[in-house]
């Protein structure tokens, strides 16, 4: 099994992922960052409303 993956032309080293696998992973990373952003914007809105910050 190990030899197959090592000779697979789609796999890119040093990590040995395929470009499709990297893009699939990164899509989740980006989605997570977007959710984090939405939560952060909401938190900053609450801080602006309920704290003396900026007024």
């Amino acid at each position, binding site marked *: 099994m190990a030899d197959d993956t090592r000779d697979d032309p789609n796999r*890119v*080293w*040093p990590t040995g*992922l395929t470009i499709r*696998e*990297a893009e699939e*992973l*990164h899509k989740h990373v980006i989605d997570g960052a977007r959710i*984090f952003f939405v939560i952060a914007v909401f938190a900053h809105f609450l801080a602006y409303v309920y*704290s003396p910050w900026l007024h």
Partner: protein
Amino acid sequence: MNQARIWLVVKPTVGLPLFLGTVLVISLLIHGAVLTHTTWMPAFFQGHAKTP
């Protein structure tokens, strides 16, 4: 979405914890900075009876 090929260079088992850990550290630093450089955040934690 043009940075996806980073995972061809950085192993996800290393890159993901590093990335998320860094976001955590930055968040703690900023909360600490606000806590120590404002009066209202410590006051929030101190709390007091609601003024009628």
